[in-house]
């Protein structure tokens, strides 16, 4: 059985990763760090409830996830307007004027990361790509794909229509696809 010191040590090591994960939802670093701090305190306070069934990290992530969802629901009550970013290179640039794929942007064959050590590197590139999306686009994507919220709930908490949500996700996925292809899939294909 691990001691409280072991857990504190693990939490300290986990902290930077928790902050990065949180900043996908809350771009303000101070807020993000506060929320992570809250989650760590909650984890320490309820350490006796940790039954060791899930891995410790997974357990801490689940605490953070609830805190984040709580925060996002709260934000809604403050009626902060969600502003969608439109002023960056749009996905239209992937297609020609007949709305077919441009030669330079056609999807290439991918070598999927089957092994864990490959996926670890894959996630680094993935985070880089995600953080380079416009912030509101990245936020919707992270809520949907990393927090696994339904679009209905995302729209509701951000005050946007479901139609708008699907458009944002469409944009996010195509941009990520392109970024991952250039940054990871083609490179690993070359070295394989």
């Amino acid at each position, binding site marked *: 059985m691990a001691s409280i010191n072991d857990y504190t040590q693990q939490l300290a090591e986990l902290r930077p990763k928790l902050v990065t994960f949180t900043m996908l939802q809350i771009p303000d670093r101070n807020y993000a760090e506060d929320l992570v701090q809250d989650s760590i305190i909650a984890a320490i306070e309820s350490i006796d409830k940790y039954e060791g069934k899930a891995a410790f990290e997974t357990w801490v992530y689940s605490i953070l996830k609830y805190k984040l969802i709580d925060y996002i629901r709260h934000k809604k009550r403050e009626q902060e307007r969600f502003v969608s970013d439109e002023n960056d290179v749009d996905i239209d640039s992937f297609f020609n004027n007949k709305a077919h794929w441009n030669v330079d942007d056609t999807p290439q064959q991918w070598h999927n990361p089957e092994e864990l050590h490959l*996926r670890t590197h*894959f996630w680094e590139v993935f985070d880089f790509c995600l953080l380079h999306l416009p912030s509101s686009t990245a936020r919707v994507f992270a809520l949907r794909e990393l927090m696994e919220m339904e679009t209905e709930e995302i729209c509701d908490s951000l005050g946007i229509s479901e139609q708008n949500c699907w458009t944002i996700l469409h944009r996010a996925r195509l941009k990520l696809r392109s970024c991952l292809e250039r940054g990871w899939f083609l490179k690993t294909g070359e070295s394989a």
Partner: protein
Amino acid sequence: MKSCIQATYLMSKQLDTQLTLLEKMSLRMHLFMCGNCNLCNDQLTTMHDLCSQRITDIHLKGRDKE
């Protein structure tokens, strides 16, 4: 449906909600004819599946270190 951009919209949407019958049919027709979109469809699904594995990966990596 003739355009690839519209097809990619439906590919993305089907990861979030059930498509209408008409949407399903027009997507299927387009994928039948378009190799690029077929590849894109597989890739968007791969991204979606990988994301749901993220937390498990964090856990596995943590266990590897022990």
